[in-house]
C-alpha cells in the first residue's frame, strides 16, 4: 500500500504513522482492520490531492525547455517536484504528453484523410504505438537530462539535495547565437513531415505511399533537404563554454554513433523488406510494434555506452553538434570557489 503515499509523506510521517497503527491495533492482531485500511487509503488520496500543484505549475514543468526559465516552480511545490523526479513514471508521463501533443495532430490529419473505417482503425493502432514508442525513446534518451535540468533549475543537485551554499547561485545566460534562426527550421521541418503524410493519407491511404504522386515526391525531397539544412545550421552554431562543467564531453570515436545510426537503419531496412511480403493490416501493425522494439534496441546501445563511460549518456552525446545549447551555467565568486555541480551538468 506504500505506493499510495507520496514520497514526502512517507519520509516525514511514515515511521510515525506505522507506530501509531501498531499502537491502535488490538493485541495479537495479524492484519489491519477494514476501517484502518480505508482510513489510510483516504489519507493517501488526500495527500496526493493536496500535493498536486495547480495547472500552471504542472504545465511549466511539463513543457520545460532548456533555454528559458520554464520548469522553475515555487518553493511550496518543490516536494512535489522532487517526489516526481524520483520516479520513472513521472518522466514517462511527461514524455507521453509531449509525444501526444507532438504526434497527435499528425495522426488526426492522417485519419481525417482516409475514409476507410478499417484503415482508420489500423492507423489508430499505429498512432498509439508510435506515440508510445516515441515517448519511450524520449524517456530513454532525454529522461536523465530532463531530471538533471529540472533539479538544477530549482536549485537542487542530482541527488535531490538543495544547494544551500550562498556563494553558489544558478543563473541563466543568453547564448551568443540566438535560437531564432534555428527553431523555425525544426517546426517547419515537422510541418512538412505532417503535410507529407497528410497528403499521402488523403490521396492513397497510409499503407500505399508509393512516392508516385508528384506532390508527395516534392514533399519528401523538401523534408530531406530541410532536415539536412537544420542539421547544418545547428552544427554551425557557436557554443559558449562558460566553464569545464558545461563543456560537451566528446564520445570515444565513432563506435557509439555508428551503433545508434546503424541499429535503426538496419532495423528499418529489415522492416521494409519484411513488410513488402505482408498484407496491409499486418504491415501497419508491424510498423507500430517495431517502433517499440526500435526504442529498446537504441536504448540498449546508449546504456552500453553509458556503462563503458561510467556516466549518464544522452542522445546529444552521440550527436553533440546537433544538440541544443546549454542554458544553465554555474556562477561562482572569484575569491572563494565552492564545489561545482559535477560532470552531470545538463550540458550534454
Amino acid at each position, binding site marked *: 500500500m506504500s505506493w499510495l503515499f507520496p514520497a514526502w509523506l512517507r519520509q*516525514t*510521517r511514515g*515511521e*510515525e*504513522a*506505522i*507506530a*501509531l*497503527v*501498531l*499502537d*491502535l491495533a488490538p493485541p495479537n492482531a495479524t492484519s489491519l482492520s477494514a*476501517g*484502518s485500511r480505508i*482510513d*489510510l*487509503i*483516504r*489519507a*493517501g488520496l*488526500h*495527500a496526493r490531492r493536496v500535493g498536486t500543484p495547480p495547472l500552471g505549475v504542472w504545465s511549466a514543468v511539463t513543457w520545460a525547455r532548456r533555454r528559458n526559465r520554464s520548469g522553475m516552480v515555487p518553493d511550496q511545490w518543490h516536494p512535489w517536484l522532487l517526489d516526481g523526479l524520483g520516479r520513472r513514471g513521472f518522466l514517462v508521463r511527461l514524455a507521453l504528453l509531449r509525444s501526444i501533443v507532438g504526434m497527435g495532430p499528425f495522426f488526426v490529419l492522417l485519419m481525417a484523410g482516409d475514409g476507410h473505417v478499417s484503415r482508420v482503425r489500423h492507423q489508430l493502432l499505429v498512432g498509439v504505438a508510435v506515440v508510445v514508442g516515441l515517448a519511450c525513446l524520449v524517456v530513454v534518451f532525454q529522461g536523465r537530462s530532463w531530471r538533471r535540468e529540472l533539479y538544477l533549475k530549482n536549485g537542487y543537485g542530482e541527488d535531490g539535495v538543495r544547494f544551500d551554499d550562498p556563494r553558489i547561485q544558478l543563473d541563466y545566460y543568453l547564448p551568443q547565437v540566438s535560437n531564432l534562426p534555428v527553431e523555425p527550421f525544426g517546426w517547419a521541418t515537422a510541418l512538412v513531415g505532417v503535410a507529407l503524410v497528410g497528403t499521402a493519407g488523403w490521396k492513397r491511404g497510409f499503407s500505399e505511399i508509393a512516392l508516385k504522386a508528384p506532390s508527395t515526391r516534392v514533399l519528401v525531397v523538401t523534408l530531406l533537404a530541410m532536415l539536412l539544412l537544420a542539421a547544418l545550421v545547428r552544427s554551425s552554431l557557436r557554443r559558449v563554454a562558460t566553464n569545464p562543467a558545461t563543456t560537451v564531453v566528446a564520445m570515444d570515436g565513432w563506435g557509439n554513433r555508428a551503433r545508434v545510426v546503424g541499429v535503426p537503419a538496419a532495423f528499418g531496412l529489415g522492416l521494409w523488406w519484411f513488410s513488402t511480403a505482408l498484407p496491409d493490416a499486418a504491415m501497419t501493425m508491424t510498423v507500430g510494434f517495431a517502433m517499440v522494439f526500435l526504442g529498446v534496441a537504441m536504448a540498449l546501445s546508449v546504456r552500453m555506452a553509458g556503462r563503458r563511460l561510467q556516466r549518464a549518456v544522452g542522445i546529444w552525446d552521440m550527436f553533440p553538434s546537433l544538440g541544443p545549447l546549454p542554458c544553465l551555467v554555474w556562477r561562482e565568486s572569484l575569491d572563494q570557489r565552492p564545489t561545482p555541480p559535477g560532470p552531470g551538468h545538463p550540458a550534454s
Partner: protein
Amino acid sequence: MGTMREPTYLILVALGRGERHGYGITQDVLELSDGRVKLGAGTLYGALDRLVAEGMVASTRAETVDGRLRRYYVLTDEGGSVVRAETQHRLSVVTNASIHLGLAGGAA
C-alpha cells in the same frame, strides 16, 4: 472558525491539555467525544500536517519507545487562541440551542 471539523477541533482540545504524541491524542479524542470519534493514523496525521502548516500546532521532540517512533506536538499561541474562540462559539451555539429547545439548564 465556524467551519472547523469535529476531529480537528478535538485534536486541538486534546493538545490544549499539554504536549501529546499521536497515540495520546487519539486516546484523548476518544475520551473527549465519549467514544464517538476514533481517529485513525491517516486522519490524525492528515489533520496534524495541516495544523502544523497553518501554524496552530508545532512538533517539539521525538523519541523511540519499544522500537516505535513517537513525535510530540503542542499547541502554538495561535492554535490556543483559535481553539478557545471555537469553544466559545460552540458554547454559545449550545446555549442558544438549549434555550430554543427548552432543555434543562439552558432555559432563562
